[in-house]
């Protein structure tokens, strides 16, 4: 059985339909590409932010823990007997104080001990001793 011959109008309508379908598909592809690209860009950007934050050593969880430990150690030492820290100086808080305060300037002394400190977060770490090797 042979197909019925189609009129010119029918052929035009089919071509038009195909063209419309193709246009719709192109649009779909474009939207899909845009959405995928945007998602990848968003992921890369957020990954980079987190990576830089962690890799530069500014892990918020670690810093928070260190601060808690430091605050606890500070509270423990201040509630106990007198320590070697300078009197009247806060031993908690992040850096931000203006430079350094010290118990003595450049000085000459014989047989007396002294101390100096700078404005950083409080100590939660063991002391270390430097001596000639």
């Amino acid at each position, binding site marked *: 059985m042979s197909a019925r011959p189609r009129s010119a109008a029918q052929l035009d309508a089919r071509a038009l339909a195909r063209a419309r379908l193709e246009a719709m598909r192109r649009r779909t592809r474009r939207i899909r590409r845009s959405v995928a690209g945007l998602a990848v860009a968003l992921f890369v950007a957020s990954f980079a932010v987190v990576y*830089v934050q962690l*890799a*530069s*050593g*500014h*892990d918020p969880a*670690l*810093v928070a*823990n*260190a*601060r808690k*430990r*430091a605050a606890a*150690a500070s509270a423990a030492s201040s509630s106990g007997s007198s320590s*070697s*820290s300078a009197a009247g100086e806060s031993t908690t808080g*992040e*850096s931000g104080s*203006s*430079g*350094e305060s*010290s118990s*003595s*300037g*450049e*000085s*000459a*002394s*014989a*047989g007396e*001990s*002294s*101390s*100096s*400190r*700078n404005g*950083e*977060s*409080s*100590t*939660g*770490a*063991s*002391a*270390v*001793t*430097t*001596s*000639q*090797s």
Partner: protein
Amino acid sequence: MSGRGEAIEELDCFGSRCAALVIGCGRAGTAGQAAALARRTLLVWHRRYSRFLPDSELSRLNADPRETVPVRPLMARLAQAVRDAGLLSGGLVDGTLVEAIERAGYGEDLRGPALPLASALELAPPRRAAGAAAAKRWREIDVDPRAGTITRPPGVMLDSGGLAKGLFADVLGEMLATHASFAINCAGDLLVGGAARIRREIRVESPFDASTLHTFELSHTGVATSGIGRRSWLDRHGGPAHHLLDPSTGRPAFTGVVQVTALAPSALDAEIRAKAALLSGPQAAPGWLAHGGVIVFDDGSHRLVQPPPAAQPPPVVTLGQLLPHVRLRAAAQEADVATGALAA
């Protein structure tokens, strides 16, 4: 592990005591893993860079008859440090005086008790500032880090000494930079640092009675102490001797300064400054302590040079900090000990 969550490893190394103190997790794992890594690394480096072990890489390099010798990256850095120390100190800090120090009686690890400092000072010759050697053999050292070679005339030998300890503290510091806080003590040369900027007490010990002369509280710094009290002995003529030589004479230096503690951005820098200050004598010593320090004189008195307010580094993120895994892997490969620990 201390009560504050700080992992501490202490060990005998480089003929003295070394320690690694770490708080918090970081690229080297937990605090305990990081401290253990530092311990293993120090022990490996001791075997590799000791002048007293005949099969160490340093001994083999010093005995090598070739002019250009392939070396590991850390050995290349040590050779570069010897050259830099000579340049920066005008030849006062000379890491090529191996023959002179062996002639002075320091040819092997000192095991016995040291000559008491007070006795050594009584017997010592008149005080004079040290000077550079005429030969300045450190200038003949050429390092090619890309090729991994050291070129020097055969016979020019490197002394690992204090420069190596400062360098090792700095390299370990690079490995531990992402932990909340750390302190590396390489036989008196310290590096203190960490991401959380936690302040740490640094006590300076007196060479006379081991009392604390001064306490610094810093979060990021290199510290080195050089002195003539601990590694001292009587030479074959009955004269006092120690390991800090006057490069101009090749004899132990008695300058009127018995110990200097220097602060600096790195432990290696601090080591160079401390030695240069001690060798340059009481008048010139403070000039070497641009970042602060403590000078102890013959009579037991001491002088404090306060660190300047800008001694603390600003919280700037460097490219090296952004790629800690690269730096850590390089250091671990250099140590040949860390890779397994990190994987675990």
